[in-house]
């Protein structure tokens, strides 16, 4: 191809020729164009490796556990005595603690979160919302260890001063504090769902002389229902996986009980206790860690997938 050789400028150097020269050298650019996507692909596959690593770790070690403890006994056993002479490994006490703490949390965060969402989406002016929302998000940014400290040293004593039967470690206090922690999650996801309800629907109702409250309850919330549900499911999943608050404030009692004034251990707290203690690698106790973690992982994964499924359906509605 005949490159035209005249420079556009009256200059000693001919730029277009210089560039053509440089191109002939087939510089490192050509390698980079092939190399870079390959390297980036390898980096991107690290996230897939992480998933494989998690699954492999949990399953391969849990298998050892289930060779010693029958899977049915594990999932139906109400006795958890890992350290006794005749150890028993029933997960029900842990499931019980996990469900209790998450239930208390959602009982606190659900109503407050939704009511906050209603206020922010339906009542608050733009200015007020722009102040309140980031403040609420701060709650979600506080490290959970701080909430644990707060539950143990402040909320528990407070509850005990009102209700003396409550023990120094109990499931109630961490449940409540965990609820406070997940308020922003429910509030902001539910608010998103409510805000995306088309204004036409609202106006149609308001035009008929209904009050804002009636419109919100009869029109907006039903329209945003699946989005609100999804926020609940995600928040519960978050509560199930939460560790430090329950570890610190609910203690390590493995009783299978429904008494919320007592200490209950969650799956997460059990993992902290056993891994922090001197469980010899290779012992049933050590492997039980992975069986419990696998159960926990399955729970949260199912909840997350469920939330995704619900909110996808919700997006189809408009």
């Amino acid at each position, binding site marked *: 191809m*005949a490159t*035209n*050789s005249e420079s*556009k*400028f*009256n200059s000693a*150097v001919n*730029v*277009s020729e210089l*560039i053509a020269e440089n191109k002939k050298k087939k510089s490192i650019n050509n390698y980079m164009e092939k190399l870079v996507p390959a390297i980036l692909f390898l980096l991107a596959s690290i996230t897939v490796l992480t998933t494989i690593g998690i699954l492999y770790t949990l399953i391969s070690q849990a298998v050892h556990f289930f060779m010693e403890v029958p899977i049915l006994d594990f999932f139906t056993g109400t006795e958890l005595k890992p350290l006794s002479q005749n150890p028993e490994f029933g997960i029900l006490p842990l499931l019980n603690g996990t469900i209790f703490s998450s239930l208390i949390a959602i009982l606190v965060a659900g109503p407050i979160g939704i009511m906050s969402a209603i206020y922010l989406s339906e009542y608050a002016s733009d200015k007020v919302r722009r102040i309140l929302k980031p403040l609420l998000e701060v709650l979600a940014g506080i490290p959970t260890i701080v909430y644990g400290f707060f539950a143990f040293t402040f909320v528990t004593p407070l509850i005990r001063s009102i209700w003396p039967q409550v023990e120094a470690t109990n499931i109630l206090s961490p449940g409540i504090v965990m609820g406070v922690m997940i308020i922003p999650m429910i509030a902001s996801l539910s608010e998103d769902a409510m805000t995306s309800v088309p204004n036409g629907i609202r106006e149609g109702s308001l035009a008929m002389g209904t009050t804002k409250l009636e419109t919100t309850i009869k029109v907006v919330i039903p329209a945003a229902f699946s989005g609100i549900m999804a926020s609940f499911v995600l928040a519960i999943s978050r509560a199930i996986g939460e560790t430090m608050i329950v570890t610190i404030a609910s203690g390590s009692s493995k009783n299978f009980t429904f008494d919320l004034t007592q200490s209950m251990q969650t799956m997460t707290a059990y993992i902290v206790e056993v891994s922090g203690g001197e469980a010899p690698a290779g012992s049933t106790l050590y492997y039980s860690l992975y069986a419990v973690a696998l159960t926990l992982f399955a729970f949260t994964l199912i909840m997350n997938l469920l939330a995704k499924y619900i909110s996808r359906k919700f997006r189809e509605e408009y």
Partner: protein
Amino acid sequence: MNMATDNKVQIEVSNDHTTTENNTTQKRVVYDTKNLNLWYSENHALKDINLEMKENEVTAIIGPSGCGKSTYIKTLNRMVELVPGVSTTGSIAYKGNNILDKSMNVEDLRTRVGMVFQKPNPFPKSIYENVAYGPKIHGIKKKALLDDIVEKSLRGAAIWDEVKDRLNENAYGLSGGQQQRVCIARCLAIEPDVILMDEPTSALDPISTLKIEELIKELKQNYTIIIVTHNMQQAARISDRTVFMLNGEVVEFSETDQLFSNPKDKRTEDYITGRFG
């Protein structure tokens, strides 16, 4: 305002064409488009285009919105490929080489064929870095040479005097018209043969538009210019030849004076007399 004196570039006469058989008054064909068809997935956007564009001429492309002007001009440097699902048939010979051929290196093509866009799109960098971008990515690293290129390109784009004291300031601080001339300077910096312009003045005020039109007349002595314009007066003012497109087809292609004073096709006449769309 006299752009020609502002612009101190000395112009070398380009008469050393190797094809000496050609009559010197006969200009070389730069782009020879034959039977070009283009589809965006199912949408047949260009239909059987046949056009010859000549060296050191300004060719204007006019036509109603959506008729395929941008699509065609972006095919000339294969930028249209950035849209997924584009397919073409036919050929476009650039100085004898079919650019639609898969073996064509698009980076080389785009080094020879510069482009100026509808909305001024300087990089969020200093004016200097904007103009030096092309030379740098093509391996020119010497500071003194870069300084030289930047000055000459900015002079070439008739904006040197306005920005020479603020070369290290962000290009976003300039007015829209100035930004567009920096974009032209950026394009000149690698000394392309052809400059493609897609409605370069549509986002600008009348005074900036006038400056750019003056500049285009200057540039045509050294560059082949293909310009899409929404503005028929502009086409009439600055171009040597004009293409009128409609619904993805070329309706008429002739000398600009001829096309505007004596259109052959009824549709062209309707369009230029404003009886259309």
